[in-house]
């Protein structure tokens, strides 16, 4: 029995050695290329069984696709990624490292933690696939106008994480399930005055800042669970897809924060923005059956028809500017202008019923008709205990 156990133990030890074999970058080769065998401690290009370590003080160029068990880039090293980087286990870019991701993608299904600076450059398409997760604790600069396809996987921008969109990328879904960006840190649009797009699903509890240009949130649905939304003068944040709201949305809005699609409030949500602009309801629906509280400034603009439906309630204790000649249909729902609320009818809107039950405007605040000399109409049910001024 003992000899059998001994052989079995040796076999297992051998397996462990193979499975956990570390291949460390030495940089002893003639160049910095990944596929130069002399650059590696095992004198071989890493394989799927290797834990790859790039110690401090090196520059490494992934001139070919690389497959490994894990990768750890350490110290002040630089890794240039031009091709597919495939890893299955937990991997990391340490604080102080610089990663230049100009092509290829992250594959393999591992979890990559970025504590360094990850620069996404060039217009080459990039991928996150196979269920790979990128946790960003530090800085991701999107310097190029590329498409990043998140086929199956996610980017989790953690509390300390910053994603700085400096160009015009499109962060897009492709195929596969469970692809999304979650943000509890900061996503900011800076630099380029053009439009960047996030079309993949997103869950935001952090800050989204548009300091320059346009950030379009399109296609797949987004979730805003509170969060901060800052838009500087001449910049635009377009909410052009279905967004589920909860919690309190704050932020300094001096530019255009445009609601262009469906906002769904299942329970309760609050707009509490500061700044000169407020949120612009350009087009679309308020839906979900919950309560949206507006305690800041909301501008109903353009002639696009707008809807409150699904027994949803819009509570206004701030300012609703009805600035254009649209129709607002309250199919099933209520617009409540509470005691401190002001509805300023500046143009010739029509507040109307369409279909559905229990639709009304309840005014305990101030409804005033200003600015335009034409006729504005309220044809849906109105209950007034407040002030109506023409």
């Amino acid at each position: 029995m003992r000899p059998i156990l001994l052989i079995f133990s040796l076999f297992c030890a051998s397996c462990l050695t193979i499975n956990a074999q570390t291949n460390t970058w030495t940089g002893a080769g003639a160049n910095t290329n990944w596929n130069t065998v002399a650059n590696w401690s095992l004198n071989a290009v890493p394989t799927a069984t290797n834990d790859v370590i790039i110690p401090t003080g090196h520059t490494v160029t992934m001139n070919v696709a690389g497959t490994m068990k894990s990768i750890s880039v350490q110290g002040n090293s630089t890794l240039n990624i031009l091709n597919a980087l495939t890893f299955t286990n937990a991997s990391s870019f340490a604080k102080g490292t610089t990663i230049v991701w100009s092509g290829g993608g992250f594959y393999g299904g591992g979890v990559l933690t970025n504590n360094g600076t990850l620069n996404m450059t060039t217009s080459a398409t990039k991928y996150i696939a196979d269920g790979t997760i990128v946790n960003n604790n530090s800085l991701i600069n999107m310097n190029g106008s590329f498409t990043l396809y998140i086929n199956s996987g996610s980017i989790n921008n953690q509390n300390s994480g910053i994603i700085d969109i400096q160009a015009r990328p499109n962060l897009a879904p492709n195929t596969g399930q469970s692809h999304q960006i979650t943000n509890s840190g900061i996503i900011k649009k800076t630099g380029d005055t053009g439009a960047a797009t996030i079309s993949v699903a997103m869950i935001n509890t952090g800050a989204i800042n548009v300091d320059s240009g346009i950030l379009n949130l399109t296609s797949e649905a987004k979730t805003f669970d509170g969060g901060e939304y800052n838009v500087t003068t001449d910049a635009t944040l377009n909410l052009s897809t279905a967004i589920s709201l909860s919690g309190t949305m704050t932020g300094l809005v001096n530019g255009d924060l445009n609601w262009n699609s469906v906002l769904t409030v299942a329970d309760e949500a609050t707009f509490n923005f500061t700044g000169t602009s407020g949120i612009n309801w350009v087009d679309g629906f308020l839906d979900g059956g919950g309560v949206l509280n507006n305690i800041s400034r909301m501008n109903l603009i353009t002639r696009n028809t707008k809807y409150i439906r699904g027994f949803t309630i819009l509570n206004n204790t701030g300012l609703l500017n009805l600035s254009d000649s649209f129709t607002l249909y309250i199919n099933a729902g209520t617009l409540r202008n509470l005691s401190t609320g002001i509805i300023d009818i500046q143009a010739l809107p029509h507040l109307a019923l369409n279909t559905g039950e229990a639709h009304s405007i309840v005014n305990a605040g101030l409804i005033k008709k200003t600015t335009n000399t034409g006729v504005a109409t309220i044809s849906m049910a109105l209950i007034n205990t407040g002030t109506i001024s023409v």
Partner: protein
Amino acid sequence: MGTLKFSGEAKTFDGGIYNVTAGNTLDMSTEINLSKTMTGLVNGNLNWNSKILVAKTAVFQFTGSAGINWVDGFLEGGGILTNMTKLNMITSNTKYITTNLVAKSHC
């Protein structure tokens, strides 16, 4: 400024303040259920064009130079509408009272 028109579905005025500046118009062109006291500064056109329903009691107590214009329609509901302000019955349109209108001041 301009005209604000109430039309379509019935409205309920449970008291409230109604201000109309000179040259401007608030048109009540649909059924309105009145209760409590309606106040406000009316120097423009506050037009009653349809049906006013008073189930219990309601009071008109506007200030300003214009008062309220009964242009057309009905006073109904079985209650008492007390006018303590200026109520102008204008145009040749037929008007109907099927409830109680009490004049306490201008009428």
